[in-house]
């Protein structure tokens, strides 16, 4: 899995590429550690190139949300495929996270 970063309107956009699974979640956690260290307050995760997510990936994202909230920040997601979104919907995590259809909608909200 790759994590690319861009900046748009003062928001850090993380573009995830590949699968978020039990083996790649530690890499994602490392990238999030760096984001917290850099005191980023508005983070958007772009899922357009994420093909798969499992419960360990969900756990890593929940941890990130908790850490950002504690630091007074916000975390939004965008561009999920229907398969990936379905995992959030089944687990009702679509109620916990702010999920937007497009990056533009998410950026407007942030």
């Amino acid at each position, binding site marked *: 899995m790759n994590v690319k970063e861009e900046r748009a309107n003062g928001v850090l956009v993380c573009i995830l590429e590949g*699968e978020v*699974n*039990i*083996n790649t979640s530690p890499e994602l956690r490392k990238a999030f550690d760096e984001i917290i260290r850099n005191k980023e307050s508005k983070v958007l995760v772009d899922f357009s190139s994420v093909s*798969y997510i*499992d*419960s*360990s990936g*969900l*756990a890593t994202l*929940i*941890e990130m*949300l*908790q850490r950002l909230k504690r630091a007074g920040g916000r975390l939004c997601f965008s561009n999920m495929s*229907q*398969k990936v979104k379905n*995992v959030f919907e*089944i*687990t*009702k*995590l679509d*109620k*916990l996270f702010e999920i937007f259809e497009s990056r533009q909608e998410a950026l407007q909200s942030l």
Partner: protein
Amino acid sequence: MNISEKVPSRLEIIPEFISSLAEKIKPLGISSEQFFNIRLSLEEALVNAIKYGNKMDPQLFVDVVVESQGDKLIIIVKDKGQGFDFDNVLDPTKVENLEKTSGRGIFLIKNLMDEVEFSDGGSQIKMVKVFNKDE
């Protein structure tokens, strides 16, 4: 089709195991959406078996059987552990549990597969998916 495999208790080999299994069941023509759900369920079952059943002991294996019967795919995953109280698994969708970082594996399996049955005290899980073929 009947596949029987012994999977070592190493989490890092799960994606490779599932990729090789995907190749073997390809001729069944399972739709990509259903394959996503089958894969996720199998991965969650394997992680539970390796982490909680076999307690990551590299000497222990997880037995996996995959069978097709008509339009049904049957997957059995068995570890060498003592099992668990499968009737009392927390509901991760309750508001008070939403921010918990564990406890979603079994819930996902139950919601993504058509039939789920535990036996041997919980050390064996049987999962059934009725599948459609890709158009």
